[in-house]
């Protein structure tokens, strides 16, 4: 009886006042899947640990590298900026990124319809073997699929998500709108990236930033962002992450999850 009373009290209280979701996490671990936007750059950062950096480049043989193997830093890449911003905004004490860069490749090439060297299997195996847990997947790809139909792009995207979930990557996907390369605009790709997160609770796809909004003068050569562009993209990612956290908090409350966890 007292259990039922407590349940009812918790229900009423949370429906009326909600739960706070503003706590700082000790560590945030992101999986990044990004197209041609930034140069790979790793710098020693005291606050950012990047021990699990993986890189695939579409125009080369598949490369799986770990942090110490990568060196050289010419720009201000999105993810390092984002990591700094997340730490500064007290979202976490440490931010880790595992990055899969696919250049200007199509999703279909990434999920196995392309040349063997594009295969994700090495990365997926590495993630599975190391049992890496991610707080979210940050997905920023699209220019490579300009001209693709929305149905085909959506199917490829869902297949990509399945590949990762089979590798035990069970995490929310934050999907950026990134479907512009200079004057080329992939409207159907944009439709998918815009609409997938609408029904976010069913599949845990959330809206990422709209990278298409970054002005042309912040883009160095068609699709690639320059230093300013990368900083702006990181700021947009921060906004998207904060919106996602807020949305997730509200969703958990509306779904009455606090009564069951």
């Amino acid at each position, binding site marked *: 009886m007292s259990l039922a009373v407590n349940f009812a009290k918790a229900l009423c209280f949370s429906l009326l006042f909600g739960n706070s979701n503003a706590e700082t996490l000790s560590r945030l671990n992101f999986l990044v899947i990004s197209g041609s936007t930034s140069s790979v750059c790793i710098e020693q950062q005291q606050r950012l640990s990047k021990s699990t950096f993986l890189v695939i480049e579409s125009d080369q043989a598949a490369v799986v590298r770990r942090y110490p193997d990568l060196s050289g830093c010419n720009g201000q890449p999105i993810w390092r900026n984002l990591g700094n911003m997340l730490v500064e905004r007290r979202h976490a004490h440490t931010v880790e990124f595992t990055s899969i860069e696919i250049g200007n490749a199509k999703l279909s090439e990434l999920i196995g319809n392309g040349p063997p060297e594009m295969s994700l299997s090495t990365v997926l195996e590495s993630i599975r073997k190391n049992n890496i847990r991610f707080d979210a997947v940050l997905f920023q790809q699209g220019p490579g699929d300009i001209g693709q139909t929305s149905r085909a792009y959506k199917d490829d995207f869902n297949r990509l998500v399945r590949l990762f979930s089979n590798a035990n990557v069970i995490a929310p996907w934050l999907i950026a709108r990134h479907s512009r390369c200079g004057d080329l605009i992939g409207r159907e790709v944009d439709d998918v990236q815009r609409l997938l997160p609408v029904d976010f609770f069913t599949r*845990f796809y959330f809206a990422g930033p709209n990278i298409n909004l970054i002005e042309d003068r912040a883009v160095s050569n068609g699709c690639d962002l320059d230093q300013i562009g990368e900083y702006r993209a990181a700021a947009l990612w921060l906004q998207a992450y904060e919106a996602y956290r807020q949305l997730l908090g509200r969703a958990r409350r509306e779904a*009455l999850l606090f009564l069951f966890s």
Partner: protein
Amino acid sequence: MSQQINIQVRPNGHNYAIENFRGAAIVFVVLTHLQFASRFENSQLVEFAISNGTTFFVFIAGLLFFWTERNRFSHGPFLAKKLRTVVVPFLIFSTPGILYALYLQQNKLLGLTDLHYSIWAYFTGFNVLRQLWFVPMIFCFYLLAPLFLRAGRTSNTFALISITATLLTFSLYSDRSMANVNPIYQTIHFAGVFMLGVAFAARYTIVLRYKREIAVCGIIAFFASLMFVPTERPQFFVDSLFLLNMSLLNKLGLAFALLFGFECFLNKKNVLLGYLAEISFGLFFAHTAVRWVIFKFIDSEIFADSPVLYSLLEIGSVFIVSIILIELLRLTLKSRSKYVIGC
């Protein structure tokens, strides 16, 4: 009063207009959960026109609840009957969906253990079979049944209209919860529609005097609301408050048009609609699973250039296979089938 209603409205214990309406309602519920609408160029309009068929079922639930229970209502036996015929099939259909979600580790996304996820999913009706959320909500209405019955039994018509208008206004200025996941919000939102059914049942003889006018008003509301198709819905229940719910207005209009249109022109036995009404609960439980299985074998790209052909294929196959499945279960289980598929 009750005797009068029983004689006038339900001669021989049957009202064919309502039966036909139930048959039409389940068609809308099935169509809502299919994919064909997205194939059309004007997909948003098509989706809007066929969506929210639940409104019909909540309205019918209120109507039939009052007619069948007003003279014999006893809460305990009423709940026991609903547990057997509604909740048991719900548990049967929910279980594979929940196991599948656990296999996909969906519980980890929500930060729940397997056990907690299962309890939560049964409680909310959140499932890969998307329509199952209806059952926890309708069970809330069954729990609140004495209140609705009391409101419907009042001899004070002004009070009845006031209660109904208040609740219905709230329904029209709110929306469902996010992903239909909160049965409490769903109940609050649909309470006005259920109460409208109760009120109509309580004064059906009076309402019938204006059946043509109500049907015409329904048609006008249905088509007028098609001109205001919202581009997006509020994500959360609280965000939807005080915003006119065009989808509900659209479906209430269509409900009036269909029910009172049938009262005017089809208040007689219709083999097809009568049959669909008879197996409506079975169709409700089975159709999404059937669609899922069928399209495991059919390429989703089929008839990519012809929305009409694709629609015929999808709608036809889902109805035919669902009906075959229901009939096989009814043949096998005989009278016990209502505890498995609700009919």
